[in-house]
């Protein structure tokens, strides 16, 4: 295992310390339990937006803490959801009296830990609302499974909820908007290489030199199926078609197109994929009105890409465009 770290058990803690030093005006780090809050938290009277999950997906979530996006982020160990006490303490630290939205990616661990934290927060008199993100079309959605995973749409939900909260919207509105974003967002990804969880010390799976995993998640788990490596344009089709057919996205609609690197993918390659995804979307009669290209929800050093398509309405675009000032996403300020 080749990584820039000291002891694996110190990785998340040391990275948080680094974030605190790198972004002093932007965020504060709480050590035990571990969480990050925006520098001016709690903001009186404002709905707070909190997210969290296993580490290893950076900049998600810590890189999105700041004005116009998240009030707090709770990082678990690598690929391990945070614990109820972490989430509870962060919730308390950012509650400005108007309630706290928990943005939760749909994984059993995240759901249960957030659920317990929500129950504990309620006991303390803090109102929370949960927005569950489950946008991954690679996974079958059924009452009898854990349901779809939350992947790329998480970034969009966090941005749009964060802006709505910043604009003074009420708890129920922010949560409803977040759910609407989730309902209108679909994602899918592929991996060209595995990643290595520091504690495990070796790659989570092995891939032949001409193989890829299709329908990959963001935790180094294998995908839905293994396939032969294809040219970028073909891979982009393999991702775009299931996405487009799932919502389904309808001709004439406006969309936000998000091409996400899983970690080790050169930006050059992401733009090659963006180009083809844009062409496919246009061929379906969609208007790409907003774009995001880069590594925003990663899986350590995995090579691969995920595509997220969000059918936007005027309100979503307005909040997407609203000023944001975080370590990883910044505009208008």
């Amino acid at each position, binding site marked *: 295992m080749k990584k820039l770290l000291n002891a694996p058990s110190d990785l998340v803690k040391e990275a948080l310390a680094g974030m605190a030093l790198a972004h002093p005006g932007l965020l504060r780090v709480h050590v035990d339990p571990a969480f990050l809050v925006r520098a001016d938290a709690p903001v009186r009277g404002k709905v707070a937006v909190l997210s969290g999950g296993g580490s290893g997906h950076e900049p998600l979530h810590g890189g999105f803490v700041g004005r116009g996006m998240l009030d707090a982020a709770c990082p678990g160990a690598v*690929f391990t959801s945070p*614990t*109820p006490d972490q989430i509870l303490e962060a919730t308390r630290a950012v509650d400005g009296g108007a309630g706290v939205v928990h943005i939760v990616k749909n994984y059993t661990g995240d759901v249960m830990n957030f659920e*317990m934290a929500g129950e504990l927060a309620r006991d303390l008199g803090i109102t929370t609302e949960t927005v569950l993100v489950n946008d991954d079309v*690679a996974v079958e959605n059924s009452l009898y499974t854990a349901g779809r995973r939350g992947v790329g749409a998480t970034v969009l939900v966090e941005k749009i909820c964060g802006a709505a909260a910043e604009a003074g919207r009420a708890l129920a509105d922010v949560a409803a908007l977040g759910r609407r974003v989730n309902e209108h967002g679909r994602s899918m990804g592929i991996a060209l290489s595995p990643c290595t969880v520091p504690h*495990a010390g070796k790659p989570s799976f092995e891939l032949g030199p001409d193989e890829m995993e299709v329908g990959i998640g963001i935790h180094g788990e294998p995908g839905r199926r293994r396939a032969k490596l294809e040219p970028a344009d073909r891979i982009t089709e393999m991702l775009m078609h299931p996405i487009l057919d799932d919502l389904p996205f309808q001709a004439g609609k406006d969309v936000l197109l998000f091409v996400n690197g899983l970690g080790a993918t050169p930006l050059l390659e992401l733009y090659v994929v963006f180009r083809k995804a844009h062409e496919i979307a246009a061929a379906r009669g969609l208007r790409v009105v907003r774009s995001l290209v880069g590594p925003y929800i990663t899986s350590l050093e995995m090579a691969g890409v995920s595509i997220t398509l969000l059918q936007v309405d005027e309100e979503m675009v307005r909040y997407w465009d609203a000023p944001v000032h975080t370590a990883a996403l910044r505009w208008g300020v």
Partner: protein
Amino acid sequence: MESGILNADTVVQWIERAAEVIEENEKTLTELDAAIGDSDHGANMARGFSAVRGKLAEFPRDDIGAILKMVGMTLLSTVGGASGPLYGTLFLEAAKISAGKPEIDRVVILQSLAAGLAGIQKRGKAEPLDKTMVDALGPAIRAFEGAEGVSLAEALAQAAEAARLGAEATIPLVARKGRASYLGERSAGHQDPGATSMWLLLQSLAEAGAE
């Protein structure tokens, strides 16, 4: 332990033994999780039980419920992932049954295990054969309940054996809960990591109960 009773010392020995066994098997659990999950189950359990062990030495040994509650709370706040809340719930629910008790008999043990299982299923919504820790704990409880006419030690051993078989029986299953369910059919052919750690815990209980 021919007494048919577990006292607080034995419970502490169980937890200490469990911490050892989890540490010894950290790699194995992680490898099982690598195959159908995200390679963290070993580290998660080891982190949790090492925290528990740290608190155990100083902990008063007069109230089994208090011990189990401490274990549950510690797992809850250190394990994370899916297994954290589930094992946390297991111990917290069991703790309610044995609250204030310096020793517990077979009936209370059975009630505790059953309450733990109920808690896990309420929290995680898993049914038998979903390829989860439930598939080790469920059979263990039925074996323990059915082990009539044998010593407590023997009953615990039979429960552990049932857990082992239950864990092994997850191999052909297609996961319907937890992270492994994302793999669909590809999850078949691998033993569930959580069922395996559950077996290790019950095996440790049997070992502590046999001394």
